[in-house]
């Protein structure tokens, strides 16, 4: 197979991210300087982001110079470049950039080697991009493992803390089990169809799939659900979120989830034209989505640890998302999925960002307990307002981006008949429960604290890079909440999907 220039251009985001990994490695080898290594990472990821935007819009902007076929093409049987993959690539790169910048200030006080975390972030990012472009079992597995293995390292990075180490072991063992289950599932599907390309599987599926395929498909989905922490495969989530340092938590909640969800949606909805979600299968998945909403929100109720709370809240949010995708169908579902995902990424980065700004890697734990935030509003009003905004957005209150996301879920539910209505009952129930713990966290920032404050953001947090990231995402939450049109427009690009002829 020959690779054309167009192919290479389309693959630029992935290539640049991979190159960044190499450059960061070399940069560390040349000189171990924190600022310099971080800068190399940020510059590399930014170029990758620009390349993503270029590939997405090039054929619109320069119709003469660029061949039309840049978008919507497959590059080798493994990768596909279309509006869908590029949108989520951009989202992953943005998450990675946010994580990198947050990490920068966070690891400043770390006593051991500070630089390798950037290497891990870029490797995981490259893995994530592979996932968004995957339309073949092989690339799915490569991307997933590339990301997961780097993630183990990231979670364990602050291994002086017993919690981190515990979280890593837990995550690694469970993750490996899930991968094994998934591999088995792939093997079963391959045994039946003799192919591993998503589109061909979809074509060969037919109306009445055999038992082998059903079991295989289920195992594959279980593996992916594990990574997405959809109930009942969520048990690792709170522990890992708690054990991982706050910026790594931001990466876990955003990039790691975006990429896996993207490939899941491509597998079951996009390329197979929805054949993979036969009615009983779809109902099962919707039940799991509803279960996630309930489990996530109920278990979050009494958490005193903010990272755990965010972990449970992410379980609930992925429940909403899964319901949105399954109920919305290929047209509306994709747009809603992209919008929701973008909003969730922005919100999660903000929430974890505030926790990061409050903590440093040098301390023996993060500022993640509820009482660490007591009285924050009265001595850091802007930071507390930002956190409040993020939590309101997670709760889906109007004026914040989360509300727009919720509107999509409700619309998808209402337009799809009785199943949708039943799912919406769970959405209402879940959201009502969730208000309690979001409010609990918010109000704790307004309580006056007479004790000494063990954790506090630095005086000049607003001028530091991490502070700027959090401020920008907070402004984005507001802007998307009030003027969602641009995001909706961009999200529509995800409907540009490559389809087998």
């Amino acid at each position, binding site marked *: 197979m020959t690779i054309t220039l167009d192919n290479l251009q389309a693959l630029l985001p992935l290539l640049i991210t991979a190159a960044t990994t190499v450059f960061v490695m070399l940069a560390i080898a040349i000189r171990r300087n924190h600022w310099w290594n971080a800068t190399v990472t940020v510059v590399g990821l930014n170029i990758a982001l620009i390349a993503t935007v270029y590939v997405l819009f090039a054929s619109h902007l320069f119709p003469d110079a660029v061949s039309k076929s840049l978008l919507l093409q497959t590059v080798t049987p493994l990768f596909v470049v279309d509006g869908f993959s590029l949108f989520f690539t951009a989202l992953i790169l943005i998450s990675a950039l946010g994580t990198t910048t947050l990490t920068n200030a966070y690891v400043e006080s770390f006593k051991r080697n500070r630089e390798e975390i950037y290497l891990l972030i870029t490797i995981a990012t490259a893995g994530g991009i592979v996932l968004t472009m995957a339309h073949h079992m092989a690339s799915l597995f490569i991307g997933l493992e590339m990301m997961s293995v780097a993630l183990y390292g990231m979670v364990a990075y602050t291994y002086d803390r017993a919690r981190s180490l515990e979280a890593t072991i837990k995550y690694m063992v469970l993750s490996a089990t899930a991968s094994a289950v998934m591999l088995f599932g792939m093997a079963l599907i391959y045994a039946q169809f003799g192919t591993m390309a998503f589109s061909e599987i979809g074509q060969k599926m037919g109306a009445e799939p055999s038992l082998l395929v059903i079991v295989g498909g289920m195992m594959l989905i279980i593996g992916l659900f594990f990574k997405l922490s959809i109930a009942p495969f969520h048990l690792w989530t709170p522990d890992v979120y708690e054990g991982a340092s706050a910026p790594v938590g931001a990466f876990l909640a955003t990039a790691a989830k975006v990429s896996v969800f993207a490939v899941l949606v491509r597998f079951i909805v996009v390329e197979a034209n929805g054949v993979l979600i036969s009615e009983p299968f779809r109902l099962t998945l919707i039940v799991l989505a509803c279960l996630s909403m309930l489990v996530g929100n109920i278990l979050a109720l009494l958490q005193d640890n903010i990272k755990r709370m965010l972990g449970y809240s992410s379980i609930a949010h992925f429940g909403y998302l899964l319901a949105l995708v399954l109920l919305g169908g290929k047209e509306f579902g994709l747009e809603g999925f992209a919008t929701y995902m973008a909003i969730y990424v922005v919100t999660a980065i903000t929430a974890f960002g505030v926790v990061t700004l409050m903590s440093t890697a040098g301390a023996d734990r993060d500022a993640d307990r509820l009482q660490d935030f007591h009285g924050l509003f*009265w001595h850091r009003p802007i930071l507390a307002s930002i956190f409040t905004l993020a939590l*309101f957005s997670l709760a889906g*209150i*109007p*004026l914040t981006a989360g*509300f727009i996301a*919720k*509107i999509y879920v*409700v*619309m998808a539910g*209402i*337009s799809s008949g009785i199943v949708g209505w039943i799912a*919406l009952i769970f*959405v*209402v129930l879940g*959201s*009502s429960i969730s*208000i*309690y713990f979001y*409010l*609990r966290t918010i*109000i704790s920032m*307004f309580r006056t604290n007479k004790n000494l404050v063990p954790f506090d953001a630095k005086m000049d947090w607003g001028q530091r890079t991490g502070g700027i990231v959090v401020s920008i995402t907070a402004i984005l939450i507001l802007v998307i909440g009030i003027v*969602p*049109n641009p995001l*909706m*427009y961009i999200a529509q690009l995800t409907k540009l999907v490559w389809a087998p002829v």
Partner: protein
Amino acid sequence: MLTWLILIPFIGGFFSWLAELVGSKSPRWISLISMFVLFGLTLKLWLEHNYSLSNLGADGTSVWVEEIKVDWIPRFGISFHLALDGLSILMLLLTSFLGVLAVVCSWSEVKKKIGFFHLNLLWIIGAVVGVFLALDMFLFFFFWEMMLIPMYFLIALWGHNSPTGMGRVGAATKFFIYTQSSGLLLLLAIIALVFVHASQTGVITFDYQALRNTTMDPKLEFILMLGFFIAFAVKFPIVPFHSWLPDAHSQAPTAGSVDLAGILLKTAAYGMLRFAIPFFPNASEVIAPVAMWLGVVGVIYGAFLAYGQDDIKRLIAYTSISHMGFVLIGIYSFNPIALQGAIIQMMAHGISAAGLFILCGQLYERLKTRDLKQMGGLSSRMPGLPPIAMFFAAASLGLPGLGNFVGEILILVGTFKVNEYVALVATTGLVLSAVYSLILIQRSLHGPAQSDAPIPGLNLRELLMMFSLMIILVWLGLYPQPVLDTSAAVVSGIDQLINSTPPAPAAQ
């Protein structure tokens, strides 16, 4: 112009937050000035437009005297659509007037975090103004939910931790969860309505006028109507959904109670008149008897529970439930007289409840207790306040010559023509209201005094507040015609809508 009505409180609130850096006085003055500007603007809007019956549209509905429509989220047919008619302007007058009072009555009560307090106070007003003006369902919901957040902070941060209640944070959370989950139901119903409309016309739109013309099958109409009805019922509050109200009131600061009783409860009644009934006229007729009986239950239940309270603010909270029960009866009788009465009752109750809550606040500032058991004999200990308290208690029991009387009598007269039994049973509410109002006066002002130490009387600021409220109540009681004229067109629109559709039960 309409946009400014919404923007003024928001901007004013923001600046009074910033002004805290300058000094503790400036936030108060900034918010007072912005409230006065708002009140002035609404007054001007009221005087310069004609809201009367002569100003009816071709289809018998009231016309908008002022309207703004700008595209907002075209993807879903959502626009920034504000419009003003007789009902809105009355509610706005009430809102902006109580807004001024809320700022004034917290002048000496709130001492900590003054800037942020006024930010919340003004943002509530801004969001409520938005609710009363919005004609796009999405925009309406936007404001509907937005007013809860500052209210939550108001109760949770500046509330009292009264020993009898569940604590201010608990009360605030309860309030928020009740209203938020009912809000979600409303959202579901709104979006379902939009989709029903879209399935008929192919156009997704949240616009009020367009959605009004949706025809649906009776079963679906009933379900959607229930979504609206329950959402408004929680805020109203109608009896099975009321339990957040006494808690919220008893923990809220005075200004919070004034806003809650005076304005927030009215948004629910407004929502029924503006949205629930015009969208679902047939289903509303089906549920009307149930709604009226629920109103009766509210009237009597609220009155009984009010009688048993020791906490003076809880007592007034339960009287609110009782008074709002009358409003509910008035609305769902679909009789023009009763509807007029309901609107007058909304205004009069807003004013009289605000007066009582402000009095409670003043008593609390002086006595540091709201427990009726620790009061008694106050009339011999302090000048000024007791006669004023007597006045508002009289207003609350529906003394002729004051606003509440006009409202209640119109509601009962109108309802009697539609459903005699409801009217008969509801009339007992008048007797019960006399009982609880008098017991309130008896237990607080008369009887043996706890001590002989004199208590300082009302100062000029407090007297001015009370006098302005009293003048309005007397005016509503003696000459309600301007208000009736203003609401006439809207009422006749609802009357037309219900009573000219084929199964017309009302004897008109």
